[in-house]
């Protein structure tokens, strides 16, 4: 709505103005998914250069930003594809996030929750959490120790809402790999959020 109109008026706009208009937005979009500053920069730069070539086809129809984000989405997926082709998945990737200690007990109930790690009730709603920028910092910090591909699978699934097939194709993994990764990511995140957010919230 607040989209600048200048590109509509002039036939050959000043393309470098895109950097100030959309650079931060595109970079934030990319880094939220890639968690790697230089990879995010590369994707944004590739997006601008691709947009430059394709500009005649766009010709100011619709929002410039939406158009750029559309290109960036492809660049991010290409990046995942490239990285995973170079490093095929290892059998043990992320095994330490199996978190066996959550279910280790000395009594007869082994493989049930260990009371020290068992979930508690979270008193919060999505609408209040999205308003808390410190919550997103905690969430990001909790995601960062996960192996890159596991964190990416989680982000593509939960943030972008991609289907299993799309994620498996982009990350070069099987569906059962994906389910194991998502499970490990969720188990780890839940515990990390409980310690670093929900427990602190109720005691403060």
């Amino acid at each position, binding site marked *: 709505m607040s989209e600048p109109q200048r590109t509509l008026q002039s036939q050959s706009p000043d393309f*470098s103005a895109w*950097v100030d208009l959309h650079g*931060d937005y595109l970079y934030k979009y990319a880094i939220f998914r890639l968690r790697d500053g230089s990879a995010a920069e590369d994707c944004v730069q590739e997006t601008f*250069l691709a947009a430059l070539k394709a500009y005649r086809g766009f010709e100011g129809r619709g929002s410039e930003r939406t158009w750029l984000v559309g290109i960036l989405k492809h660049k991010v997926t290409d990046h995942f594809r490239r990285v995973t082709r170079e490093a095929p998945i290892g059998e043990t990737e992320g095994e330490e996030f199996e978190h066996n200690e959550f279910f280790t007990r000395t009594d007869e109930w082994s493989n049930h929750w260990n009371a020290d790690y068992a*979930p508690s009730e979270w008193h919060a709603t*999505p609408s209040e959490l999205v308003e808390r920028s410190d919550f997103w910092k905690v969430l990001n910090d909790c995601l960062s120790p996960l192996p890159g591909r596991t964190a990416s699978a989680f982000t593509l699934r939960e943030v972008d809402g991609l289907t299993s097939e799309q994620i498996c194709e982009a990350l070069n993994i099987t569906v059962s790999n994906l*389910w194991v990764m998502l*499970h490990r990511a*969720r188990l780890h995140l*839940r515990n990390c959020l409980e310690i670093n957010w929900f427990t602190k919230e109720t005691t403060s």
Partner: protein
Amino acid sequence: MALKAYDKTKHAVRYWLLRRLPTCKQTVKVISESMERKLSLRERITVKLHLWICLWCVWYLENMELMRDTIRTKASQEPNLDSSSLPPLSAEARERMKLRLSQRND
């Protein structure tokens, strides 16, 4: 007195069930998969029964739902990325991109 006998029976039933059902460790894995695929009838029944007697796994499921709903809500607000706490583009990258774009501008 009657209440005590009832509690005892309830406890025995729970104990008997929990001994025969999948463990918490197995159940949370199935809970995660339920977010990805349709569970079989057998899985649905065993998870339901497990949740009936295990409050920890009930909370686990509720926590999963809150995580998913919160992230989805956030993602649907993506136009607000500008004001988010994520880092902006560095000055150096900004200059580099401007240069590349202006070179191709001719």
